[in-house]
């Protein structure tokens, strides 16, 4: 059914790597993803799996030591589709894309705002870049936006400095900035990780309401399966720089295909069921991407690994139809269990 949806953003074959002290780290190693207009894609995985780097690659935000080596990121917005990676890094189109077509919010809201300028100044600056409002109109609009993201007393708070606000308030301000130009896609890079649980829930509610209101797509990066269950339409599971499984959210929870997804789901406590027993954990740790295991990179930790197969050849992607894929030798190309 999802096949009929129009993709808004199409990532294919993305490879991003970083030069480090010990060598080149391939943080994203051939990722394909689609984000559909008006829908929510959750990218889930352990820390270091490359999900954040994927998100940053979209807006060309990888820092100096990193580089995007291959792949294409096609933006289908309003006009002619184009590859974001082929844009001039200092050109106008990329600048309009950032904050205009695509808004982005980050993990540490307080650190993502400059402490020396008021949140109003930073919001108005963005508004004026993307909407061309004059100073007074921009300020009025800024107050409206702060009100819309649930900041109480916005007329006064607009002149507050980030260090005078709580983390939750800062994240709301960040959301207001990200949404000020009515983007068609919001990239949220673990926006609730640094917040406490109640604030986290309120921010998620806010995001869901705003998404419905603005009819925008959301790409939500998280390691929290609870958040996935609550927000996602589609889910992509990442492991060591690759997408290992892709599925609509209900199907993923009901019938996980990839052993990694299964292990992930099994490690989430369920109220009632898990009382008094040890939670299963995934053995081992995420390997250092510098020393990527041969074959399937999950095989050393995999309970279902096939000796002589998984440790030698990288598995190919198996398409089950209906937007479901998995990268695992357990399934043959027709999608049936081998």
């Amino acid at each position, binding site marked *: 059914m999802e096949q009929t949806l129009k993709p808004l953003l199409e990532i294919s074959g993305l490879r991003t790597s970083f030069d*480090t*002290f*010990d060598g080149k780290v391939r943080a994203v190693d051939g990722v394909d993803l689609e984000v559909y207009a008006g829908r929510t894609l959750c990218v889930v995985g352990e820390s270091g799996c490359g999900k954040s780097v994927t998100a940053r690659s979209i807006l060309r935000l990888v820092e100096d030591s990193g580089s995007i080596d291959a792949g294409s990121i096609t933006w289908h917005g309003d006009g002619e589709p184009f590859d974001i990676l082929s844009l001039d890094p200092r050109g106008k189109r990329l600048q309009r894309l950032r904050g205009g077509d695509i808004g982005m919010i980050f993990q540490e809201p307080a650190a993502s705002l400059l402490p020396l300028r008021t949140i109003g100044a930073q919001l108005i600056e963005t508004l004026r870049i993307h909407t061309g409002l004059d100073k007074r109109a921009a300020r009025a609009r800024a107050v409206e936006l702060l009100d819309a993201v649930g900041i109480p007393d916005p007329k006064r708070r607009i002149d507050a400095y980030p260090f005078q606000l709580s983390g939750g308030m800062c994240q709301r301000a960040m959301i207001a900035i990200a949404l000020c130009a009515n983007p068609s896609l919001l990239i949220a890079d673990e926006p609730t990780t640094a917040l406490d649980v109640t604030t986290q829930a309120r921010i998620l509610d806010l995001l869901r309401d705003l998404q419905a209101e603005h009819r925008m797509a959301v790409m939500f990066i998280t390691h929290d399966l609870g958040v996935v269950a609550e927000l996602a339409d589609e889910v992509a599971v990442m492991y060591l720089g690759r997408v290992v499984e892709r599925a609509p959210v209900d199907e993923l929870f009901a019938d996980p295909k990839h052993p990694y997804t299964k292990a992930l789901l099994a490690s989430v406590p369920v109220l009632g069921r898990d009382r008094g027993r040890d939670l299963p954990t995934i053995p*081992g740790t995420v*390997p*250092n991407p510098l*020393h*990527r*295991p*041969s*074959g399937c*990179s999950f*095989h*050393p*930790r*995999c*309970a*279902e*690994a*096939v*000796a002589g197969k*998984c*440790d030698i050849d990288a598995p190919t992607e198996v398409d089950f139809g209906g937007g479901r894929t998995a990268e695992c030798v357990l399934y043959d190309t027709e999608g049936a269990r081998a």
Partner: protein
Amino acid sequence: MTLKESDAPDGMTPSPSEVRRTRASQRQLVWWAFKKHRLALVSAWLLAAMLVVIALCEFVAPFSDRHRDSEYTTAPPQVLKLWDTDGPDGFRFGLHVDGYTSEQDPRSLRITYEADPDDRVDVGLFVKGEEYELFGLIPMDRHLIGPKDVEDPMYLFGTTTDGQDLLSQLVYATRVSASVGIIGVLLAFLLGIVLGAVSGYFGGWIDNVVQRLIELIMSVPSIPLWLGLAAALPATMGPVGRYFIITTILALVAWTGLAREVRGRFLALRSEEFVTSARLDGSSHARVMFRHMLPSFSSHVIAALSLSIPGMILAETALSWLGMGLRPPAVSWGVQLQDASKWSVLSGAPWLLIPGLCVVLVVLAFNFVGDGLRDAADPYKH
């Protein structure tokens, strides 16, 4: 289908380099990281060589620091040659320098020297020269390099206005100037580490008092303060006493930076679990501070020490150059450079600036080693 631990495939075992990294001691990690800084490594070798020269100063210097040759004042440097072809018997192999011919300007009465290729001065390694006591104990008369006949002039860096061998003086000055820096920093370090540790570890009003004291000392411009204190020294004081007092004065002003560094580290570590557990184990405050906490950032401290030595050396040099620090007959880089202060002298004898080159080199070396160490001190950063 399930794999057992024993037949875990290759990917699970960490690479050899990773094993090496995770099992190495902190010191080894710092050393590995330090070795990657080329400049720091070269500088470290340079400083090591300097330490050898300091230790064997009487042996390395061709002449003693009392040697004075009134026949050759302000003579230019000679070039050390390995063979000559135009000697009386054609090609001849052997270390030598050319002697001098002198000429006096009839109006200014100034004597200028020039190299005289016909006057060959034979130079040897490990030659007999002036007698001295190595380490103040072993009587010796051999010098690393020198003229085969002690009476001959061999001045590779030229001579001073007093007719002293600049090279020999420089060797002795290196001992004095570098040791003022090192001893001074060690003194400053003692003060800094104790006050910084106490200040950062206990916090509260103790911290407040120490911090205010530091800010106070820092707000007085340091060189005038040094000058003021040094000026109070009686002129009759002997060179050794002066050396120690000047070093102490420099240390008294310089400990503040180190104390801040140490305090910051202690403050950051204070709430760490290993500190709490050491306390709960019944360790005394002093033991927690100096056996548990201090070793955990010793590389940082060494880096800070290395970075403080240049300031000390520069201060001594400036002070002595101004005539307020060490005074002849003591010889330091600053004292040597006093010779170059008169522009009428300097214009004819640029080699008098060689000690300045030495200052720059040694200060750079300490800075590079310090920077290299500081970067290497966080081996897990990358």
